[in-house]
């Protein structure tokens, strides 16, 4: 929600110092890397399975809330970072097994409608279970405070998020480009029928992919929940972000999702400071412009 009037578009303190620019740059990349975790999963699911998972943002939110509860019960951040994605991945598996898999081969809009309904169910369930109060996941003591990075004071936990999500994205990249499973997925992005003709059980691939991407979304949920706050409308925030990212990057493109996430993260970090009221406006304009001029996305591989 933006409560800023559009009239004072140009604030006085638009001149930024070097350290401010560096801090924003770092923050933008941090945010962008978490977006990449969410958007790449959404993009790959769409590219391979032809399912536009509107509930992907709900997985992020559920991951964050589950992680919050686990930290509260066990007091250990690492346990929740491991367990919460596992639980959400299981939930993703159940949804794929009993709902999404009934709609394979049907119109793509049907899966969008289904997952839209699911996201509605999840958001009201969260509201019932955890209430509408915003929470924050407790981080370990050694992640509190700031660290001095070449003269810039940067929160330690954000640095951890940056390193952790970059590692995870790199792992995903290697997984997609170097492993046998990645080969199947990349082939599936181009022509799923041929993959099936080669004797691969594509429905098993679909299920594992859905489970895996739900888990990754939940990982992003836990670290975002610890970095920012958890609230019952964050599912919408993240699904819109992810949608914008994959529209910019091209549906089904991993590289496009990464670049799109970085653009959006940097835009958010700088835009929030330079033009607070207009930042969201600009995002929607960019999305509309990309859809109109290059509907296949800026970095589409096809």
């Amino acid at each position, binding site marked *: 929600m933006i409560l800023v009037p559009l009239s004072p578009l140009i604030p006085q303190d638009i001149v930024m110092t070097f350290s401010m620019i560096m801090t924003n740059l770092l923050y933008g990349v941090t945010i962008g890397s978490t977006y990449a975790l969410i958007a790449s999963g959404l993009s790959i699911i769409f590219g391979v399975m032809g399912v536009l998972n509107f509930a992907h943002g709900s997985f992020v939110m559920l991951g964050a809330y589950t992680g919050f509860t686990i930290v509260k019960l066990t007091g250990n951040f690492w346990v929740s970072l491991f367990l919460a994605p596992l639980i959400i991945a299981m939930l993703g598996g159940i949804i794929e097994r009993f709902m999404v898999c009934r709609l394979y081969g049907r119109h793509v*809009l049907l899966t969008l409608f289904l997952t839209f309904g699911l996201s509605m169910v999840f958001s009201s369930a969260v509201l019932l279970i955890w209430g509408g109060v915003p929470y924050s996941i407790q981080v370990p003591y050694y992640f509190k405070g700031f660290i001095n990075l070449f003269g810039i004071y940067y929160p330690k936990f954000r640095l951890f998020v940056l390193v952790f999500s970059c590692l995870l994205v790199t792992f995903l990249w290697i997984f997609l480009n170097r492993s046998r499973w990645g080969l199947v997925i990349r082939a599936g992005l181009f022509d799923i029928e041929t993959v099936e003709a080669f004797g691969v059980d594509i429905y098993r691939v679909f299920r594992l992919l859905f489970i895996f991407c739900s888990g990754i979304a939940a990982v992003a949920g836990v670290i975002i929940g610890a970095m920012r706050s958890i609230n019952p409308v964050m599912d919408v925030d993240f699904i819109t972000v992810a949608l914008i990212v994959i529209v910019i990057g091209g549906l089904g493109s991993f590289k496009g999702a990464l670049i799109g996430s970085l653009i959006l993260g940097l835009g958010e970090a700088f835009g929030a400071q330079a033009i607070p009221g207009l930042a969201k406006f600009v995002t929607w304009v960019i999305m509309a412009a990309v859809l109109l001029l290059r509907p296949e996305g800026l970095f589409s591989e096809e």
Partner: protein
Amino acid sequence: MVRFRKFVEVAILLFLVLLPLGSDRLFSDFYIALFLRIFIFGILILGFDLLSGYCGLVSFGHAMFFGTGAYVAAIAWKYLNNCVWLGILLGLGLNTIIGYVLALLCVRTRTIYFVFLTFAFSQFFFVTANSWRLIGGADGIAGIPSPTLIPGISLGSRTGFYYFSLAFLVIAYWVARRIVNSHFGRVLEGIRENEERAKFLGYNTSLMIRRVFLISGLFGSLAGALMTGFQPFVSPYYYHWSLSGEFVIMEILGGMGTLVGPLMGTAIVIFMGDILSTWFKEAWMLCLGAIYVICILYSPEGITGIIKNISETGGLMKLLNRLRTN
């Protein structure tokens, strides 16, 4: 079948005309308000069905027309003159411009990209309404005077506005039915089934889509203006994507591309919202969502699909028998 439908239509209309007579004696005034809400959203859903049900282009930002209609009516009634026609006509005028321009842009995309684009445009309107102080910003506009039919005759009473909206619903239904039965309507269905083929038959499909987009926007605009007459305040919520999502739910629960179905869907969502929220308190959204999900999984054609199934198999008993033998 057509005769049967005509009979049902007249029966329902008679029921709706006679309904306010029983108000306060048989049931509370609250139900009149509930029906009013159904009429208003019903008008919008009829237009929505022309675009998404008949033409196959699902818009996820239809609230932008609704919101614009509501805001224009609010501003016109509050600051210019509280004649009801002024607000409605100004809203239709502005929405014609908006609809024309957006149709030019949106017609370039199909299916999922059309969903994204309409969603992006509606967010655009939402952000504007939410941050533009001149039209109230996040607070919206309150204290809108109740409109007058002609100078001297107020539409302030609930029954008066009930009949006013009902008249518009009937007109909207008639217009939509005429469109669906016309040549234009058949071409729209052709575009939904196979656009390439419609093109090869010599139809300018892009022009057809632009037309139906504009028409469905005008239905939404009218509904928005009536909503302002019903509830004397407007807020950026009228532009919110969740409202657009609600339209999609109404449409799908009823059955896309049937006109009657989406109207039933509207009635179901609004009635169910009322009943479920008294039974389940805060959990009602969960119940509605669950019902909607089950509907998509087991009967994507909605209520009308179920009814059609039953009538085609020759009654409920035969259907049960068939299910048992299978």
